């Protein structure tokens, strides 16, 4: 990668950051159009830079670009959408595309586990809570981001620093060796060598090298279960601050569970 590519990348990150900043929910008139334009441009530029300059062409690189684009798009919608329900649904999109990326890496078991656990359980409970907690009307705190400028600045500086380093050609001799090794162990070759059937590998690793961690994970889940039960059994008094916590007009539209 030439230095000019690096600067191009930074430019794209700057564009993306600006677009995201414009898209984050803020009061005042809508700035969606320039935001969308900037973001889409930045994403397309990034993907084309990656596709042209970085990725070794193979039959799966197209899939990689596609699912990366979907994941990044979904993630930016998660954080910019004004309705939490949509945020959650876009997150499902992120999960599915990440699962697809994992399948590209021959981590099928993990991919399916990701879908079952995240999409099948976690996000459903998020949705459940969103449904219980608020109806479709927009709230103040969803339409007003908090310190969006600094957040975007910090986030994108960090992102640019890491990704810039990741795609940068090594300069020092040591780094060059490492990079050369990485290049040698091109994933294409590496993955062909993997045996068919990822589940058995996962099981083998899980039950031998990582058995203690597996036990700890089990205990962690148990603790979380106990904690959740304890939390949900607690009687919480509504703190009186003079106002009814929900406007009167909403009462008919709200339901208690069961």
């Amino acid at each position, binding site marked *: 990668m030439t230095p000019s590519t690096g600067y191009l990348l930074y430019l794209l990150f700057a564009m993306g950051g600006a677009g995201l900043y414009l898209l984050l929910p803020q009061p005042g008139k809508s700035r969606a159009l320039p935001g969308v334009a900037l973001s889409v441009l930045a994403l397309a530029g990034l993907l084309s830079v990656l596709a042209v300059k970085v990725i070794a062409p193979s039959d799966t690189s197209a899939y990689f670009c596609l699912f990366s684009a979907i994941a990044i798009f979904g993630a930016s919608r998660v954080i910019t959408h004004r309705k939490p329900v949509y945020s959650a649904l876009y997150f499902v999109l992120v999960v599915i595309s990440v699962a697809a990326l994992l399948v590209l890496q021959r981590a099928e078991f993990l991919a399916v586990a990701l879908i079952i656990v995240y999409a099948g359980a976690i996000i459903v409970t998020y949705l459940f809570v969103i449904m219980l907690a608020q109806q479709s009307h927009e709230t103040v705190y969803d339409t007003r981001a908090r310190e969006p400028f600094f957040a975007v600045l910090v986030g994108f*500086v960090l992102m640019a*620093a*890491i990704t810039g380093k990741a795609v940068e050609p090594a300069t020092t001799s040591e780094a060059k060796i490492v990079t050369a090794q990485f290049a040698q162990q091109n994933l294409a070759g590496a993955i062909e060598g993997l045996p068919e059937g990822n589940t058995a590998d996962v099981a083998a690793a899980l039950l031998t090298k990582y058995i203690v961690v597996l036990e700890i994970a089990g205990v962690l889940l148990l603790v979380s279960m106990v904690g959740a039960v304890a939390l949900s059994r607690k009687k919480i008094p509504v703190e009186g601050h003079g106002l009814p916590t929900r406007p009167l007009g909403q009462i008919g539209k709200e339901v208690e569970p069961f």
Partner: protein
Amino acid sequence: MSIDALNTLKLSGLVVLLAPLLGAILAGALGPKVLRSRSHWPAILGVGAALAASINIFMTIYGAPAGEASARIPIYDWILSGAGSSFRVEFLIDPLTSLMLLTVTGISLLVVIYSRDYMREHDKPERGYERFFAFLALFVFAMVALVLGGNFLLLYLGWEAVGLCSYLLIGFYYSKPAAAAAAKKAFLVNRVGDFGFGLGILLIYLSFGTLEYGAVFEMVQNGVLASGEPLAQGRITAIALLLLCGACGKSAQLPLHVWLPDAMEGPSPVSALIHAATMVTAGVYMIARCGAIFTASTTAMTVVAIIGALTALFAATIALVQMDMKRILAYSTISQLGYMFLGIGVYAADSAVFHLFTHAFFKALLFLGAGSVMHAMGGIIDVRYFGGLRKLLPWTFLTFLVGSLALSGFPGLAGFFSKDEIIHHALSSHWILGGVGLLTALLTAFYTFRMVFLAFFGRERVPEGVHAHESGKWMLAPLLLLSVGAIGVGYLGVGAKPFHEFLAPVFEHTFVANNPAIWHGHASDHAGFWEHYGLMIVSGGLAIFGIIGAYFLYARELWIPGLVKATVPRTYKALLGKYFVDEAYDATIVTPARQVGRFCVGIDNWFIDGLIWFVAAVPRAIAYGLRLMHAGGMQGYGVSMVAGIAIIVVLLFWM
């Protein structure tokens, strides 16, 4: 003593000590949830086991060959502080210990059994039922520890534990202000005595380098200090007087007697326990145990005798005019304890312990009887509201009468023999001491039967709405058993005097060796009739005279007391006001102390707190400036944190 016997003693000693503790723990831990109205069982079983073990100890000691009836039994090393000074948990078991154990556990068992019904209202346990029994058993444990302990440290431990338990039990009805105040008073007054006692023990340790009884007494009798220097008379007198100070506190002698009458606020079984078996006897026991120290100082013995005599007379006069049944009994206890001190003071420790022994029976009987009356009368204890109860409460009356006769020194009952001995020794020591003893005996008979006649004879003066009823079997059984004791135990001290013979090894090198008038043993065999029986006739006559006087004044000619009251109103008031000792203490000690306290509070509030406030104000002022940086939003902190990470990453990768 054989190894078997030592093992028996060790095991039994442990049972005596730990069974009541276990009972207390069980009653306290399981009482509220599990046992509930059965909470008395752990205490009864614990104290019962202790009694059984005490009997075993007694039998072992009794059966031991002559001259070997004493055993030091180490249990384990308690405090090891290098430099040769270590303290052991050890038992000293000799005839005195075994007798005291028998008295303590026996009386306590009866009291605990008695409490089973007493602490119930219509067969429903009172609030704090399990607490009561837990404390009772703990009290027994503390007293047993005091008696069994083989060194001054254990003695002190038991001493303090007894004080604590008395505090807890006197304040049993802690929601009643009078009870709470009485508990506090008992504790504080005891604290005064214990302070002296503690100083005494420290002085013993400083002087002799050990707290173990045997070693200390041996050094005292050899007249040397631990350093080898000769023991100065002043030092041993100081030790004895300091120990006496503690004894005065525990045994309610002048001038620290004020807590005992107030302690009547506790439930009656507690009073019985405190007065008969456990707490107040601790002082007498201690002085008897430390005979070597006391007999080494004539001054101390004189002080003991004078305090005893004064207390006996002083308390008896107050008891003359009191109206509260339990208070009369309380003052009589003080008076009888005075007798015991007097006995010790005239080198008749065995007689004093004998009196302690007999007194335990009839005083427990009287208090339990009073409790029975009180229970029957629904809590009323003022004798002016009684009268004619002998028909309503026949069993209580009979047992109470036995106790009263014993207390008065009616010939043939327990109190007669023991008191008589003390008066005899007092007379042979100094005629004033003996005279005081005789006068007190007369007064004792008089005020005791004043109470009996007011309560049980004459017209019924029971207030409206009170339905007096005889108590249940759990309460009557101990009363009957104690009556038998009150009649019978006196005969242990006549004729061949088995009691004194049994105790003799303990005192033979201390009190007996110094007693100017050996009355028992070989000396008395050759005395003439009047020498032998004259005093008995005199004191018995005085008792009967007192009883008859009380009969005429309080059962017949009820106007005479009123006349006396009107004739000498100031004396009457002084008696009624208990010589205004409490008021004097209040004016001389309590109020000045309170003033000092106020002054200290002022210093604390204004000066020290002000300083602290000032120290706190400086960082607060600084924080006031700093807190503007904390906006309070977690996300803001997060942004700054990640900004830091981003800066580090940028510096690391690109610089």
